[in-house]
Each structure stands twice: as C-alpha cells, then as structure tokens.
C-alpha cells in the first residue's frame, strides 16, 4: 500500500469511528490537496479555504495574545468545518453534520493527527 493510500485509509478510519464526520481532507499548509476521503464537495477548493482559515486564525490568535491556536471550528446551520494543523506543514480538515460532537471530536482527531504526522514524516511540536 502506498503512503497516499495509507493517508486515505487513516482518514476513512477517522470518519468511520467518529459519529457525524462526513468528509476528511489533508492538505499542505499552503492549501494544496494531499489526500481526501470525501464526496459531494470540491476537495481542492476546501483544502485551499481550510489553509486560509487556519492561517487567519493563527494570525488572530497571535494578535490577541490568547496562546497558540488549537483548532478552527466553523459552525454552520447544518454542520461544522474543523481545521487542525498537523505540525507546521500540513493540515487536517474535517466536515461534519449537526450531530457532530466537537468536544469528543478533538480526542478522536488527536489520535489521527499523530498517525498522519508519522505517515507524512512531520514532526509534531
């Protein structure tokens, strides 16, 4: 199995073990899509937008002095978009429906972020 397939497999596992997640993407920090387990969306566009959202949130967090950024949660009428950094060079974007529990999501995502970092040779701080 190639490394990219491993990444897709990890995204699929995250989606299947977390109630409410509908799509998962990994992109580079500058918004280039690496891998996606998704349907019904334009993954390249979402990857680029996720990168911008994370960048803006990091700048905002630095400007207000509330500590380092943990994740970006965008709450919509019928669901969520959650963006996590995977170290400094990549990010994990999750889409979920309104049943997604964002509190328990973070524990599930942490496990996947560590696994994805290993697969992508990224060192986590």
């Amino acid at each position, binding site marked *: 199995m190639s490394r990219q397939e491993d990444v897709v497999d990890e995204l699929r596992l995250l989606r299947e073990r977390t109630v*409410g997640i509908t799509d998962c993407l990994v992109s580079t920090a500058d918004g280039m899509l690496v891998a996606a*387990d998704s349907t*019904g969306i334009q993954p390249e566009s979402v990857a680029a937008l996720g990168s911008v959202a994370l960048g803006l949130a990091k700048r905002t967090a630095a400007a207000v002095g509330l500590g380092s950024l943990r994740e970006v949660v965008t709450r919509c*009428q019928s669901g969520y978009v959650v963006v996590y950094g995977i170290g400094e060079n990549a990010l994990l974007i999750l889409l979920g429906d*309104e*049943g997604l529990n964002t509190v328990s999501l973070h524990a599930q995502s942490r496990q996947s972020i560590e696994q994805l970092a290993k697969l992508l040779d990224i060192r986590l701080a």
Partner: protein
Amino acid sequence: MSGSGADRDWSAFSSTTALEGVLRQAHYERFTGRLAAPGSVGVEICLVDGLVTAILTPAAPGPDSVLLRSGRVSQVEWSRAVDTAGEHGRLDETLVSRSLVHGGELDVVRISALFDAMFAVCLDAPEDWEAQPPESGIEPPLPLVPGIPPALLLTEADRRSTTLSRRWGSPAQLARTRPHVTAKATQAGTSAIERHREILLCANGRRTPRDIAFVLGRGVYAVMTDLGRLENRGMVQIKEQAAPATLPSVAPRRIEAASQATTVLPEHAVPEQLPRRVQQTAARAEGMTPYQGFDRTRAGDYPPS
C-alpha cells in the same frame, strides 16, 4: 406520587438496562433536569416533572434538523425565528406565530423525533448516567412541553427494535452498516417511490442509516426500515463490510450514488462526462446549494459586460 404515566407498567420491557432503571427512578421522583451519560458522545435526556421533553444525541436528528434538512423551514427563516425568539425565548411559539410551521405539525415532528432519539440511544445505550440540573449544557431547541412518560418511549423503542430484529437481524448491527446501491437499482424498468429514491441517492457505501437520516431530515428508524425494504427488493446491500470497494482517494470526481441510481432517479440522470455537473446534482440531492460561479463563468458572463 402522581402525574401522567406514573402508573405505567415497567415490567413490559424485554430487557433491563441501566437506562431503563435510571429513567424509572427519574419518573417516579418527578425529576426535573438532565440525565447525562458522561462516557458517551453528548447524550442527554431532558426531563420536566419526570416526563421526557427532549433528547440530545448525535445518534438521531432532532426536531430542528428534521425541519431544516427536510426543507420544511428554510435556513433563512429559521435564523430569523431564532433571532426573534432570543436566547431564552420560545422558538416553537415564534415558528408558529410566523406561520413557518403549523402548531400540530410541529408537535408531530417533536414527538416523532423524541421516539426516534430514544430508539437510537437504546441501540447503544450507555451504562453510566448522572443527574444534572436543568440549566446545565446546551438548551434543547424545541422541547416538548409537557413531555412524554419515559416508559412509553422505552416501550416503543423496544417494539421498534423487535420489529427490526424480526425482519432484518440485529438493529445495532444494521445501524453500523454503510449501505450502497446495487446494480439492480440502475437497471431499466426498476422503479421506486420518491422516499426510497432519495435514500438510494444517499446510499453510497459511506453513510450509515444515521448519516442518511441526517442528510434527509428523517428518523433513523424510518430510514432503517426503508433500507430493509430496499434490500428485500435487491436495490441496496446492507451487509456489514470492512470498507467500500471504491474508496475515493485524492480529489474524487465521481458521485457513486448519483451515477448508479440514474435509472431509478431519471430526474437526476447526468452523463458521466460532466463530472462537475454530476457533483452539483448530488449536492442538490443532499440539500446543499451548489456553487454558482462555475456555471456563470462557463455561460460566458464573466468578465461581466
């Protein structure tokens, strides 16, 4: 002890669970507050005077999701109603006063959502429950007042579980499956009612019955029984499997359900060589607003004259 439903026959249940025990006690004590399952993902049962008024669970769509996802109330109208009602106002009264939904219809949606949520919670009921004050946690958007006796909800959950077990095997197992449409659904001459067609569009091997219920704004039990019927007709496969055979990898451009269900869903039929339009059609089927920019660009309106 008094109150409606207080003399219900609790011995009617076929199984004794921690949830049944804690609800029985809450009902007898006319408990007002929340029963939360700390070890689970956000399951909370709200009670007033021992009657269940709302169930917050990720396992089943609430009445708000049903109204919005089904398109019964538009998102713009909903947002306006929420703003009008305010933080502690009565959203149900606002929805009715603005004629967005009839009072009786709203009650039907709330009651059916409650029964469905209890059924979904019982499929994988947590063992540990703790009582919390009513003001803790998220306020349920559309509580049913007065509520429903918990015994009634449990009896119905038990009946639904038994019905599914008798026809299609373990409901808990069925809830974990990710059904996908079969080749038969795409054969010419195959027909399905609109309700089933919408489920076929969603059955792409990625979604559980719970996921489909959220997409369509329907009850989980209703979706499960429809999936069972569709399996009996050979139009979906709901056997549990490790992973879909056609796992999308990087930048997937195909929508399996939309392309496979073209015979059953002629109005959604789209040629394979128009991948972006396939995606937009599937987006419409899932209740999303497709991105309009590409169409405008292709139509030659850009740059604007």
